[in-house]
């Protein structure tokens, strides 16, 4: 903690931390929480301290007054839990590995971009490019996500409680995107092997993206994703979308599709 100018170790009941990790401590017990106030210390100090934690460290952190600061909790590589008490700026939890990051507010552009593993939960709305290029882990957005949600996703799972904007899942390569509301224009344009599940209306599908049959295995994986996101939507109300695989190899006859 040496890099922190104002760390505060507080004894707080777990119930006040809004924790969904039941393994952290039994109800009523206390855990140490490191508090970092971004009005009195910098995001550099916060990230340096989080990066300096020993391997396997599972400590708990609270970030106060984020006030839209960029790159909060970026580049984490330990199974820590970070609670951000307010709106986060760009690239919050960018490239996350192993950590659980809870954002109690809105998230700016590129939340959990290129996440490799772990869990990021936005208890609010997310801006553009949420989960962009992410390879793994679970991104949950309780509210709406803006344009390009899941753009170029490479294996991440994303569950959005509300709507997603245009060009979501553009060139999506792998992973699952679940949209419990509506999807904007050009959903899944030039999609590869990602699977998309949308409960509401899709404004339009992008090139090579088509509606597909919902087979039992898809219902099963969707059920599991909704459960992991803490949602009770009916999986049977969703439609699956994916690649028609007609544009995988360039052919001159398809030129008008681009």
């Amino acid at each position, binding site marked *: 903690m040496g890099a922190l100018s104002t760390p505060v170790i507080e004894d707080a009941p777990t119930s006040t931390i809004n924790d969904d990790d039941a393994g952290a401590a039994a109800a009523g017990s206390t855990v140490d929480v490191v508090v970092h106030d971004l009005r009195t210390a910098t*995001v550099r100090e916060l990230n340096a301290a989080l990066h300096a934690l020993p391997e396997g460290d599972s400590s708990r952190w609270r970030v106060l007054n984020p006030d839209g600061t960029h*790159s909060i909790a970026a580049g984490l590589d330990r199974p820590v839990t970070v609670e951000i008490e307010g709106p986060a700026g760009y*690239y919050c939890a*960018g490239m996350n590995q192993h950590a659980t990051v809870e954002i109690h507010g809105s998230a700016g552009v590129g939340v959990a971009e290129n996440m490799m593993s772990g869990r990021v939960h936005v208890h609010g709305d997310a801006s553009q490019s949420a989960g962009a*290029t992410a390879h793994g882990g679970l991104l949950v957005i309780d509210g709406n996500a803006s344009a390009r949600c899941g753009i*170029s996703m490479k294996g991440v799972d994303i569950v959005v409680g509300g709507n997603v904007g245009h060009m979501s899942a553009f060139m999506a*390569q792998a992973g699952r995107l679940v949209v419990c509301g509506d999807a904007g224009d050009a959903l899944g344009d030039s999609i590869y092997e990602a699977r998309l599940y949308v409960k509401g209306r899709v404004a339009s599908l992008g090139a090579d993206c088509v509606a597909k049959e919902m087979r039992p295995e898809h219902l099963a994986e969707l059920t599991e994703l909704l459960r992991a996101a803490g949602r009770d939507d009916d999986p049977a109300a969703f439609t699956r979308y994916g690649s028609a695989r007609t544009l995988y*190899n360039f052919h*001159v006859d398809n030129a008008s599709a681009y």
Partner: protein
Amino acid sequence: MTHTPDDVASRGLRESATFDRTTIAAIQHAARTGIYDIRGGGAKRALPHFDDLLFLGASMSRYPLEGYRERCDTDVVLGARNAKYPLRLQTPVTIAGMSFGALSGRAKEALGRGASEVGTSTTTGDGGMTEEERGQSKHLVYQYLPSRYGMNPDHLRAADAIEVVLGQGAKPGGGGMLLGQKITERVAGMRTLPVGVDQRSACRHPDWTGPDDLAIKIGELREITDWEKPIYVKVGASRTYYDVKLAVKAGADVVVVDGMQGGTAATQDVFIENVGIPTLAAIPQAVQALQEMGVHRTEGGVQLIVSGGVRNGADLAKCLALGADAVAIGTAALIALGDNDPALDDEYRKLGSAAGYYDDWQAGQDPAGITTQDPELQQRLDPVAAGHRLANYLRVMTMEAQIIARACGKAHLHHLEPEDLVALTIESAAMARLPLAGTSWIPGQGL
């Protein structure tokens, strides 16, 4: 039948300057196949280039240094503006970004070996970092590209510098393409794509737009790597003056400017030949931008790396004299490894090409084993021997530049300056902002 120029002239035949044989062949190819030409390499058309510049050696008014006796240093430090660990290279010739996928793993290993042997850096490309490359590269620059294929924070932290790629000289404004025949299981696995599909790399980054966003993105990369690594921004040469200013404003430690002679693994010929500006025209624009921002060759300043058609020590010396801090080579490095080797002429001819002309780097059939993923063809390249050839070539380039620098009285390659140069043509004089040889006239700058 082959026509020699003498035969053709003696029979009164005259080739059209507009519809020359290459143009006729291109029209016929388009009519026959319905598809444009895709190839590797950079612009082939004649352009104002470094050959159009000459050095003014010392005589009465300047004092030369003794060759083989007096020191002429060649080291360069890149990225000290913000990074805790800037790159310290022994020669200002670096290896440009070329992907594993476009190149075989053995070719990437050879590039790393050659660069490390002479104390310079090599660069990854689209598709991520391979063990061969990291293992053999003392200084490895990790490219951060729009596709983010294989992008992994562990690799980011394992790199010695990070290069945010906005474009390249062969195709400013264009994304990448790796045709299905080169997407083997290993390449597909690294890029999270099915085997055998065409891999399209986006032309825009997925999570930022414009210079204001780029500043925030660079901030994130610095946070993730704890402000240890230099961050480069690479642009294809087009609106270079403005692009360099915006890159510096966004926080770049190093700006890489790649002219239109810079190579590509696979791009449409029409794009390569018609988009972008020559390297010679880009350098003075970049230098002006850095000078106006007070970061050119200053303490804590921003370094300029130039690429696109750099072939020898004279080109290197000219780039540095015009204001670059280092150069990057791609095509020339592949030639040093063994690309277009005359000994392979028969095999190139079987592919419809010839030694000295082979540019189908996209096809994956390279008889030299460099631009291929074919398991048998790859084995033809010995990474140790090829790496050593590259090191030899890098040493020759460096020594050639030293020869010129000493003749101009410079004890370090970076002491070369525009005042040491003149131009041979009006075009090159205007682009390089140098006087036409024998005059004090710089076209475009008044009297």
